[in-house]
C-alpha cells in the first residue's frame, strides 16, 4: 500500500509501513492503521527477517511515575485555508513554507528542485506572502516572530541555486531582530530578491493557464500590482501544537491569551511554571528560532535536574490548614485555589471536607479569604495573629495626621512601600504598614476591625490585578473592598475611608502619593465616629 507522504508535503509516496520522518530514536518502523490492510495482506509480516511485526498490537495506556516533567510540545503552522481569499486548499500551487522546506532539501522528494505541485514543472516565478494569520486580529493577533527569517532563508537558498528565479516577498514589516538576521535581509536584496511592501488581498488563478495572480499594493510605490506567479508560498502564523490546551488542563499549568504555555515569570523564571517540577521550553511558550529554543531547552533541563537532584522539597511552613469542624460541603476553596492544592475528601453520607496538599500550597491565603465558614487558616497568618498585629500598630498615634492602616501584600504591595522608603520619598508618619501574604487573604470583617482598632482610614495595597503573584488574589481583594464599601455606607461610615490600590513593586512614588492623598482625604472627612464597639 502506498499513500502520499505528509512529511514530504505529499510530493512523494510512502508505504503503509514506514519509518517516521524526521527519524525517531530508536529507529523503528510504524504501521499506518488508516491504510494498512492487516490480515488481508500480511506481506510485511512475511518479509520481516526478525519477525518483529505483530499486526494485532493494540494501543495501550502506559503509566510512568516521574519526579519532574518538561513540556516541549512545540508549535505548528496555522491552517492557511482559514484565510479563504488565499485559496490554500483550492490551488495546489499555493503552498506553505513548511511544504517548501521539503522542496528546498536536496535529499527531499524533488531533489532540491522547486516545482509547481500542479504539474511538477519547475517554478520560475515565486511569490512569498508574509503574515498569513499572524498580526491578524481576526485570527492570531501576535507576530509569529520567525516567519520573516524562514522566508528569507528559503528565498536566498532558492535564488543561490537558481539565479534566474524571479522571487518576490510581500510583507507588512520585515522583522530581523536576531543576531546576524539583518545580514540575511541584506544578502537577499543583493541577490535581487524583490520586496513588495503590501499584504495581498487575494490570490486568483487564471482558469485557462493555471497561472496564479497575487493581488497586492506596493505601499511605497503607491501602486497596485498584480504579481504573476508559478508558485505562491504562504508564511503562516505559528500556533500552539494540537492538544496544548488539553495538556495544560491535565497538568494544571496556565496558558496565555494566545494559547501558548505561560511561564512563571518571563524575565526571571522563563522556563518554570506555577507548579514546582513542571518546566516548559521552546516553541511551546512562543514561536522562536532554533538557538533560543536550544537555550530554553538547556534551562528547563537544568531546572528539572536541580529539582530532582535535591531529593527533597524545601517549603515555607506558611500553608493553609482546614478546620474540619467548620468545613462543610461547599466547593469554593478547591475552585479558587490557583495551585489546585485543595481537594475534596468524601466523608460519607454525602458530606465532603476540604484537604490541603502542603506540597502544592503556596501559602497565599486566597482560600482563607474565600471560605464562607471561616474554616481555613494560614499558618503564621491566623486571624487572631493578624488582629493582634493590627491592634499593636494602631495603638499609638503621636502625629497630628489621621491614623491610616496600609495592608500590603508581601509581593508588589510591600515592595512598593520599601521602594518609596529607599527613594527617600515622604508620606505621613501616621501610615502604619501591615504585611499580609496576599491581599486575597483579607476578609471583610477585618476592615471593620481596623476601624475599631483606631484607624481613620484603610488602604489595601496589592499587585496589579493582572500581575498578582498569586494570580487571583488582587482581583478578589478588589471585589471585597467594593463590597465592604457598600457595607460601610450601611454602617454610616464614609466609604472613602477604605480604598484599594494596585501597584507594580517599583511604584514607590505612587504609594507615597496615595498615602498622602488618603491622609488629605481623611483630614477633610474629620474624625471617624463609630456607632459600634465600646
Amino acid at each position, binding site marked *: 500500500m502506498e499513500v502520499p507522504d505528509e512529511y514530504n508535503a505529499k510530493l512523494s509516496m510512502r508505504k503503509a509501513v514506514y519509518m517516521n520522518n524526521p527519524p525517531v530514536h530508536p529507529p523503528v518502523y510504524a504501521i499506518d492503521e488508516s491504510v494498512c490492510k492487516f490480515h488481508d495482506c500480511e506481506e510485511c509480516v512475511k518479509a520481516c527477517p526478525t519477525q518483529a511485526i505483530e499486526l494485532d498490537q493494540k494501543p495501550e495506556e502506559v503509566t510512568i511515575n516521574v519526579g519532574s516533567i518538561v513540556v516541549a510540545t512545540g508549535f505548528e503552522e496555522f491552517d492557511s485555508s482559514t484565510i*479563504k*481569499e488565499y485559496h490554500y486548499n483550492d490551488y495546489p500551487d499555493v503552498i506553505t513554507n513548511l511544504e517548501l522546506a521539503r522542496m528546498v532539501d536536496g535529499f527531499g522528494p524533488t531533489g532540491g528542485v522547486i516545482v509547481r505541485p500542479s504539474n511538477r514543472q519547475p517554478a520560475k516565478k515565486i511569490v512569498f506572502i508574509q503574515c498569513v494569520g499572524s498580526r491578524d486580529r481576526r485570527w492570531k493577533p501576535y507576530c509569529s516572530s520567525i516567519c520573516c527569517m524562514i522566508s528569507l532563508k528559503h528565498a536566498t537558498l532558492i535564488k543561490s541555486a537558481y539565479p534566474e528565479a524571479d522571487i518576490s516577498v510581500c510583507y507588512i514589516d520585515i522583522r530581523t531582530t536576531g543576531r546576524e538576521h539583518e545580514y540575511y535581509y541584506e544578502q537577499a536584496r543583493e541577490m535581487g530578491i524583490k520586496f513588495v511592501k503590501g499584504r495581498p488581498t487575494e490570490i*486568483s488563478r487564471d*482558469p485557462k493557464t493555471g497561472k496564479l495572480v497575487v493581488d497586492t499594493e506596493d505601499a511605497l510605490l503607491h501602486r497596485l500590482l498584480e504579481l504573476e506567479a508559478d508558485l505562491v508560498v504562504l508564511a503562516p502564523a505559528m500556533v500552539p501544537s494540537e492538544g496544548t490546551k488539553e495538556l495544560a488542563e491535565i497538568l494544571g499549568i496556565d496558558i496565555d491569551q494566545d494559547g501558548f504555555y505561560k511561564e512563571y515569570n518571563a524575565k526571571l523564571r522563563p522556563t518554570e511554571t506555577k507548579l514546582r517540577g513542571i518546566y516548559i521550553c521552546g516553541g511551546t511558550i512562543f514561536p522562536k528560532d532554533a538557538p533560543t529554543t536550544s537555550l530554553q531547552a538547556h534551562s528547563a533541563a537544568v531546572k528539572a535536574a536541580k529539582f530532582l537532584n535535591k531529593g527533597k522539597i524545601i517549603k515555607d511552613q506558611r500553608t493553609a490548614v482546614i478546620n474540619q469542624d467548620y468545613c462543610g460541603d461547599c466547593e469554593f476553596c478547591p475552585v479558587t485555589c490557583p495551585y489546585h492544592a485543595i481537594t475534596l475528601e468524601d466523608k460519607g453520607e454525602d458530606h465532603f471536607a476540604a484537604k490541603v496538599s502542603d506540597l502544592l500550597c503556596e501559602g497565599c491565603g486566597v482560600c482563607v479569604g474565600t471560605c464562607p465558614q471561616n474554616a481555613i487558616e494560614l499558618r503564621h497568618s491566623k486571624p487572631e495573629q493578624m488582629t493582634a498585629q493590627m491592634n499593636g500598630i494602631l495603638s499609638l498615634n503621636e502625629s497630628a495626621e489621621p491614623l491610616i492602616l496600609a495592608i500590603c501584600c508581601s509581593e508588589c504591595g510591600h515592595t512598593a512601600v520599601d521602594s518609596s522608603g529607599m527613594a527617600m520619598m515622604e508620606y505621613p508618619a501616621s501610615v502604619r504598614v501591615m504585611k499580609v501574604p496576599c491581599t486575597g487573604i483579607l476578609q471583610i470583617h477585618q476592615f471593620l476591625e481596623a476601624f475599631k482598632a483606631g484607624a481613620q482610614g484603610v488602604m489595601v495595597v496589592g499587585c496589579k490585578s493582572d500581575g498578582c503573584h498569586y494570580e487571583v488574589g488582587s482581583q478578589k481583594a478588589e471585589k471585597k473592598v467594593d463590597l465592604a464599601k457598600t457595607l460601610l455606607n450601611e454602617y454610616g461610615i464614609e466609604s472613602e475611608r477604605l480604598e484599594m490600590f494596585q501597584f507594580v513593586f517599583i511604584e514607590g512614588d505612587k504609594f507615597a502619593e496615595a498615602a498622602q492623598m488618603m491622609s488629605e482625604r481623611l483630614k477633610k472627612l474629620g474624625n471617624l465616629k463609630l456607632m459600634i464597639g465600646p
Partner: protein
Amino acid sequence: MMSYAIFLGCTIPARQPNYELSARKSLSKLGVKLVDIANMTCCCPPPVQSIDLKTSLAIASYNICLAEEANLDLLTLCSGCFESLAMANNMLKHDQKLKTKINKILAETGKEFHGTKEVKHFLQVLKDDIGLNQLEQNIVKPLTDLKIAPFYGCHALRPSELLQLDDPERPQILETLIKTLGGTSIEYQNKLKCCGGLLRGVSDDLALDLARDKLINVSNSGADCIATLCPFCFVALDIGQIQIRSKFQEIYDIPVLHYSELLALALGIAPEELAPRTHKIRIDKIINKIL
C-alpha cells in the same frame, strides 16, 4: 401562516415594479403574508450615513421600532435596506451604550428600540423560513438549461460580522436557491466584486467602468443571464449596458433579472403579470427558455 412586515425602501417602488411584483406574488404563492406598515421611512444607506452616521442609525432604528410594535420580523428586498437595517439592529442589540444614545433620540418620536425582532433578507426567508423543500415542491416551470450568473452585490454580504447572511468569501445561499429552481449556477471571475452602483451620480465614469468589468466577466462565463438581489446592482448592470453601448460601443445583451423574478417564473406566474418591460435589456429570450 408566516407573516412579515415588508420594507420596500425607495428605489423599488420608484422604479422597479418588477422586483416588488415578483416578490409579492412568489411569497403569496408560498404561503407568506406581507404586511405593509404605515409611516416607514428611508433606511438610511451609505449615502445618508455619509451625511451623518448617528442620524442614520436613529432613522434605521425608528423603522425597526415600527416592526417591533407590529410584532413582526422585517423583510427587505433591497440589499441596501437590508444592510442599513440589519446593521442598525445588530449594532444596537450588542452595544448597550449605543442603544441608550439612539433611544434618547427616538424618544422624541415616542419610540423605543428593544431589539426583539430580526431584519431578514428575502433570501433568508426563502431558504431558512420557507425552506428549500417547500420551495422545490411549488416549482412548476423548472429553470432547466438556464445558465445563471449569481450576483450578490455588496450589501447582502458585507460587513459580514453584522449581517451574518452567509460566508463573505464563499457565499452559497444564492447558488443554492438558483439550483433549487432547477437552474445552473455559473461561476465567473471576480463574482464578489462591486458593480459600482453606488458611485453613479458621484463619478459616473468610475461607476460604468466597474459595471463593465462585471459584464465582461459574466459574458466570458457563457451565462444566459445575471441574477441580482439589489435594485442598485440591477440599475448598474441593466441600464448600465445601454450606457456602455453608447460610451464604449460594446454590446453585451445580457438580461439582468432579480432572483425574485426567476423565482416567480419558476413558480408558474405569468410573465406579463411581472412588469417585464421594466427591463432595458429585454428578457424575452429568458422567458421563452423557461416557458
